[in-house]
């Protein structure tokens, strides 16, 4: 499972525009009293490839989820592209989410159904509910699904049951699902934490190509410092819900990481030991 492939051109169907992201003094406190983010302000210009680094529990997942409204902010404002996420409800919020692709650590596929139907999930925001209910898809939706799969080299698995895929293949299907949205922003929550090192690199490569060739803004949560340095240009360090580092990923030093992690760097903080 180390086959290399390119997220090639020709899959750019709708010509999405890239969006910037602005967080202004965002705090999130969950109903159980846990404060996940404290007064986070952040400006990410369109087209940047950013990693968010921190230990588990540092607020990485929350930070990424306030951007598409999966987690509502307690105070502060979040703007993605032309939209003020914090003010959106219902239909408008779903429309915004349609412009933001997201992939997850656990791939989040419906394992008992086909790759095709999983990627079709990426078309939900642009599909009237009655059409989904009837199970009919438009020619354009199918084209976008096939294009998404093609650009991650998974077109030959389109009718395969998701449970029959390997971990790396599942994550690529998840990327195809996000690409089928025709997104302007790509969020990735620990996308390689469940993958073996070679597969992790190939998935990171896919994300880099999405950023490079489509010009999408890409945010990746990572806890492995060498991946962050190798694949992203800007790195944001989170510790206990606060930004403790923000700068070029390549220039981050060992002591920067020790500050982010609040302890000496260990060998398993890197993918390549």
């Amino acid at each position, binding site marked *: 499972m180390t086959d290399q492939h390119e997220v090639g051109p020709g899959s750019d169907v709708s010509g999405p525009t890239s969006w910037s992201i602005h967080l202004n003094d965002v705090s999130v406190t969950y109903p159980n009293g846990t404060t996940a983010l404290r007064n986070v302000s952040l400006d990410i210009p369109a087209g940047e490839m950013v990693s968010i680094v921190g230990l588990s529990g540092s607020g990485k997942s929350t930070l990424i989820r306030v951007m598409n409204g999966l987690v509502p902010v307690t105070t502060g404002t979040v703007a993605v592209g032309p939209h003020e996420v914090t003010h959106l409800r219902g239909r408008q*919020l779903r429309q915004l989410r349609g412009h933001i692709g997201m992939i997850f650590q656990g791939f989040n596929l419906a394992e008992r159904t086909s790759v095709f139907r999983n990627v079709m999930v990426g078309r939900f925001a642009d599909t009237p509910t009655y059409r989904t209910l009837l199970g009919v898809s438009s020619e354009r939706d199918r084209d976008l699904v096939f294009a998404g799969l093609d650009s991650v080299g998974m077109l030959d698995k389109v009718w395969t049951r998701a449970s029959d895929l390997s971990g790396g293949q599942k994550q690529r299907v998840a990327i195809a699902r996000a690409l089928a949205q025709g997104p302007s922003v790509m969020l990735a929550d620990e996308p390689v934490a469940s993958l073996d090192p070679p597969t992790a690199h190939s998935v990171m490569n896919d994300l880099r190509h999405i950023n490079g060739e489509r010009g999408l803004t890409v945010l990746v949560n990572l806890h492995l410092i060498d991946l962050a340095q190798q694949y992203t240009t800007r790195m944001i360090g989170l510790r206990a819900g606060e930004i403790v580092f923000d700068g070029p990923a390549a220039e981050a030093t060992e002591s920067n990481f020790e500050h982010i992690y609040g302890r000496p760097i260990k060998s398993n903080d890197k993918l390549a030991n």
Partner: protein
Amino acid sequence: MTDTAPTVWELPPKPTNRARIALIIGAIATFTTLTCLPAIGGVELDFASLVDNWRNGARLGREFIQPDLSFLPRTYRPMLETLQMAVVGAGVAAVLSVPLTLWAARQTNPRLATRQPVRFTINVVRAVPDLVYATVLVAVIGVGPLPGLITLILFDIGIVVKLVSEAIDAGEHPYMEAGMAAGGTQVQVNRGVVLAQSWPFFTNQWLYVLELNVRISAILGVVGAGGIGRLISERRAFFAYDDVGAIVFEILVVVIVIELFSNLVRRRLT
């Protein structure tokens, strides 16, 4: 080989729940005893009659285990009616159970305002015994298979919706978050992925209620709700226990065949 002394582990004291078990057993025993004391309103169990009347039972049993198989041809039509009721009932209930189940599960319907009424209605439907439905519906609609069919549908929906919605709620559904993140409505997510993912829960319960339906619809005829039960109650009224034996034997065969079939289907499900 020298004999080494067994290691003595310094363990924390093992938690014991003997007191609790004793309490539970005591409570059950007391409750059982009390409910069997007629003096304080318990049920009257006349064990003596068991001894007095065992001859009756023996004679009856003798006829019963010598079923009059020549009676069978007369049972085919009512048996077919029973099977039709069972299959049609399970089929209609299967179709209706899908939206109701997704409505009743918390994970597929986070809105309390629409979930709670469905759950409440289903609980009420489940609380009424099937024979009560049949009796009332026969009084309303009249004698025949229709009240029986409606009884089965209500009974099946109660079971399927409760069991499958609980199974859905007990599971983890990370793919739902992906559907929400992609901008889907709850209905789209339910239809697009949850349904595909919950298919085995549904089919399992559908097959189960199909088995139950054969058994129940065999009895429903006793109150006039169609099927082979009418024949059972008729032959029993004539004390023709050899005929009743034949019918029971037939039901046994049908139930076993249906179970074999559903086991076969179940094994193919994952």
